[in-house]
C-alpha cells in the first residue's frame, strides 16, 4: 500500500516448511498436526489480545470458503508465563500465511524482537515430534521429547539429515533449545 517492504530473511525462511512437509512425511513418517504455534516474549500489555483480534480479522478477510475450513485462532499462556498464539486449520499454506501476517505486523511496529519461535507439531507413530523455527537465527531445528524432560538426540539428528535439502536447518547443535511442555 505505497510502503516499500524489504524482505526480512529471518521471517520469510519459515515458508520453507511448505515444501519440507512432503519430504518429512515420505521419509520420516511425520504427519502434520494441523496446527502452528507462535510463542512471544514480553509483548506490551494488551498487545497480545490485539494481535489475536487482528489475526482473526485478517483470516476472515482472506478466507472466502466454507466456515468449516476456517482457521481457528487460540490464545494460550504456558507454564512459564509466555504467551502463545495457536492457529489451527486444515491447510498449511493458510497457517503459514497467518504466521507471516503476525510476524510482519510485529516487525513493522518495531516489535520484531518479541517473536521468539514458531512451532510445527507432527505425529510420528505414537509420539509427537516438533520442528521449531527460531526467529532470531532464521533456522529450523527438530525437537523430539521422550517424556521426563528427555529428548531423543539420535532421532533429532536423523531428522535434520533428512530435512537438510528442504529446510534451513540450524547447523549449531548447541542452539537446538527445547521447549518443554509446549502447548501445541
Amino acid at each position, binding site marked *: 500500500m505505497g510502503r516499500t517492504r524489504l524482505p526480512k530473511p529471518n521471517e520469510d525462511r519459515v515458508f520453507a516448511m511448505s515444501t519440507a512437509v512432503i519430504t518429512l512425511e515420505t*521419509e520420516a513418517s511425520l504427519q502434520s498436526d494441523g496446527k502452528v504455534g507462535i*510463542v512471544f*516474549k514480553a509483548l506490551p500489555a494488551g498487545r497480545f489480545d490485539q494481535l489475536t483480534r487482528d489475526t482473526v480479522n485478517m483470516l476472515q478477510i482472506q478466507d472466502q470458503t466454507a466456515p468449516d475450513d476456517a482457521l481457528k485462532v487460540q490464545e494460550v499462556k*504456558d507454564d*512459564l508465563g*509466555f504467551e502463545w498464539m495457536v492457529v489451527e486449520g486444515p491447510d498449511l499454506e493458510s497457517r503459514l500465511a497467518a504466521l507471516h501476517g503476525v510476524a510482519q505486523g510485529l516487525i513493522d511496529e518495531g516489535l520484531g524482537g518479541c517473536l*521468539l*519461535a514458531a512451532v510445527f507439531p507432527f505425529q510420528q507413530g505414537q509420539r509427537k515430534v516438533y520442528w*521449531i523455527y*527460531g526467529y*532470531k*537465527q532464521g533456522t529450523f531445528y527438530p525437537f523430539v521429547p521422550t517424556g521426563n*524432560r528427555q*529428548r531423543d*538426540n*539420535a*532421532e*533429532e*539428528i*536423523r531428522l*535434520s*539429515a*533428512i530435512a*537438510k*535439502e528442504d529446510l534451513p536447518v540450524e547447523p*549449531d*547443535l*548447541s*542452539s*537446538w*533449545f*527445547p*521447549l*518443554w511442555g509446549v502447548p501445541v
Partner: protein
Amino acid sequence: MQRKLGADAGLTLRMFLALFLLAVVYLAFIGVLILIHAPIDIIVVVVAVLLIAQYFYSDKLVLSALHAHLVTAQQQPELYDIIGRLCQITGMPMPQVAVIPSPVPNALATGRNPKHAVVAVTSGILSQLDPKEMEAVLAHELSHVIHKDVKVMAMASFFATVAALIVQSGMWFGMFGGFGGMGGGYGGRGRSSNEGQGMILIILVAAVVWAISFVLIRSLSRYREYAADRGSAIITQDPSQLASALQKISGSITRIPTKDLRQVQSANALMIFPAVHVGKGSLAEIFSTHPSLEHRLARLRDLEAQLSR
C-alpha cells in the same frame, strides 16, 4: 562388508595418497642415509624389535596403561549383549571386554587382528550413553580392528620412529661426544670433524623426515577415523546414533542442550554465540589425530541422507 552404502572413493583415495607420500618420504630418507654411509643399522634393528613387540602386545600394553580390568558377561550383561550382536553382524570372534574406571567417557578397541582383540570402555561412557548409542560407538571401535588399523599405523609410523630416534639419540650423543674435534662419543672412538659433520647431516635429514611424516601420519589417522565412522554406519545402518553419541561425549559446548528456549531468552537479551572451538578449516585440525566433531557430524549426516534415500 558393504551393506547398502557404496564405497567412499574420495576417502580411499586420500588414504592411499597419504601412504604413498609417506613411502616416498621414507625411500628418500633411506636413499640419503645410504648415500652418506650412515651407520644406523643398529637403530633400525632396535626400532624394528620395538615395533614388533608393540604389534604383538598392544592389547596388553594398552590395558595396563589405562588400568583396565577384564569383565565377564555376568558383570556386564548389557555390554556383552551389544558386543555379541556386533560380532554376529561382522563375523568377528568375541573379543575380550574390559572396563576402565574413569568418569571421562571413552571407548577403544585394540589388537593386531580380530582374533586378538580387546574392547575397553570407561565407566563414564557406560553411564552417559543409551544402548543404541553405545552400540554405534563400539561398532566404530570394532571397525578399527577389522580395518587392521593397528598394523597399518604401525607400518606407517615405522620409519618416522626411526627418524625420531635418530634425532633424539643424535642429540644425546652430540651432547656427550661433541660433533668433532673432541674425544669420546659415538662408538667410544674419537671423532674427526668429517664424521661429526656427517652426524649433523644425518640428524638434520632425520628431523625433516620426522616433521613431514608427522603431518602425513596425522592425516592418515584422521582418514582412518572417518573410515571407522563409516564402518559403524554400515554395521548399524544408523549413523545418527553415532552422531548422537559423539555430541554427548564431546563436551557441553557442542551438545544438544536441555535448557528451555524460553529460559535462555529471559537470561540474556543477546543470542548465544558459539564458543571458540576447533571447527572447519581450523589450523589445529591439521595436527590432530581425530577430525573435528563438526566434520564428523557433517559426514555422518551425509551418510544418513544416503541411507534414507
